[in-house]
């Protein structure tokens, strides 16, 4: 860990909010991107990013200085996003929501913009993955983490990381194959 970062952590532990602001500024992009890729929209990602930093602030006394701060922070964000997705999935099962969705599937404004872009296509692919696979794909491709680093961040074994990454890639490959078949079958004009 950088000495500068260590100083910020120590100062934050003494109640120095400015030092914590520096930590937030350094890692806001990483945390926000993880939240966005996991949750799929800007509003939820903003809430999750804020909540991640608040949890980190509260849990900072338990942070071990020998550990990589970014891994620790990303693990907080990852756990939070997985929890949010589980809650969201549960919420979707409520009858009210179900009838609403069947009647008129609402389109998130952020999503509708994204769908016009390549980023939207990638996000759609990610959204098809179960959260436990999605997280690993994000950590692998956006953060370029090794198997060992992913295992450390997620608390999974190395074998589980390899297996889940493999399954995720198979699912994504199938999705792309289907996409290509659908594109080929689409009527011209």
């Amino acid at each position, binding site marked *: 860990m950088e000495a500068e970062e260590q100083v910020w952590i*120590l*100062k*934050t*532990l*003494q*109640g*120095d*909010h*400015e030092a*914590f*602001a520096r930590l*937030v*500024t350094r890692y*806001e*992009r990483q945390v*926000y*991107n993880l939240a*966005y*890729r996991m949750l799929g929209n*800007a509003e939820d*990602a*903003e809430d999750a*990013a*804020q909540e991640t*930093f*608040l949890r980190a*602030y509260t849990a900072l*006394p338990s942070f071990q200085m020998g550990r990589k701060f970014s891994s620790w922070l990303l693990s907080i964000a990852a756990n939070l996003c997985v929890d949010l997705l589980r809650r969201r999935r549960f919420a979707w099962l409520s009858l009210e929501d179900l009838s609403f969705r069947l009647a008129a599937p609402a389109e998130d404004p952020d999503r509708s913009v994204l769908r016009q872009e*390549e*980023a939207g*296509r*990638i996000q759609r*692919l990610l959204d098809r993955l179960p959260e436990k696979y999605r997280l690993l*794909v994000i950590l*692998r*491709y*956006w953060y370029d983490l090794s*198997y060992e680093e992913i295992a450390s961040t997620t608390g999974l074994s190395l074998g589980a990381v*390899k297996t889940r*990454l*493999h399954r995720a*890639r*198979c699912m*994504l*490959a*199938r999705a*792309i*194959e289907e996409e*290509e078949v659908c594109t080929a079958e689409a009527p011209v004009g």
Partner: protein
Amino acid sequence: MHCRSAGRLMSLRLDAALTPDQEAQLEGHLERCPRCRSTWAAMQEVESRLRSAPWAEPRPGLAGRVLARLPEGRRSVVPALLPWPRAGTAALVALALLMLGLVAVALWLGVTPAQGGWMRVAQEVQNTALALWNGLLYLLAASGMLLRTLGRTLAWPWLPVLLLLALSALLVGLWFGRSGKRRP
């Protein structure tokens, strides 16, 4: 090689984690199996799309929005006591001055413990406080030894009680101690 095993090797190949033997096995299988060739092409497409995926950027000012939600103060924790928070340092200096002042006044007045009656109760309290006080002072090493000696030589019954109260105030101050810096 089965297609399932080939699939696992494809994933490892994308991470450049194949041994030369595995590489040769996979290549041989791909030459023979059109379905796996198709899967491999799709996996490469996945790889390409994900590698070129952009980062999502937060709205400017996320740090400010986080700070606005932080609790007002942080409880100090043991590792955070070094260096001491400003409030803790101030409380420590105040305690030291208070102790010196009390010692000086007691020595100057030459007070002696009262005998009999309700003062016995006070004497017991004093003894208990002295015992506790001594225990704490041992933790303060050399400076603690000096104060302990002073405490024993002084005869004013309420002095140790006052010192205990002052120490408690110090600990509370440190527990809730905050840095002087505040977000504007």
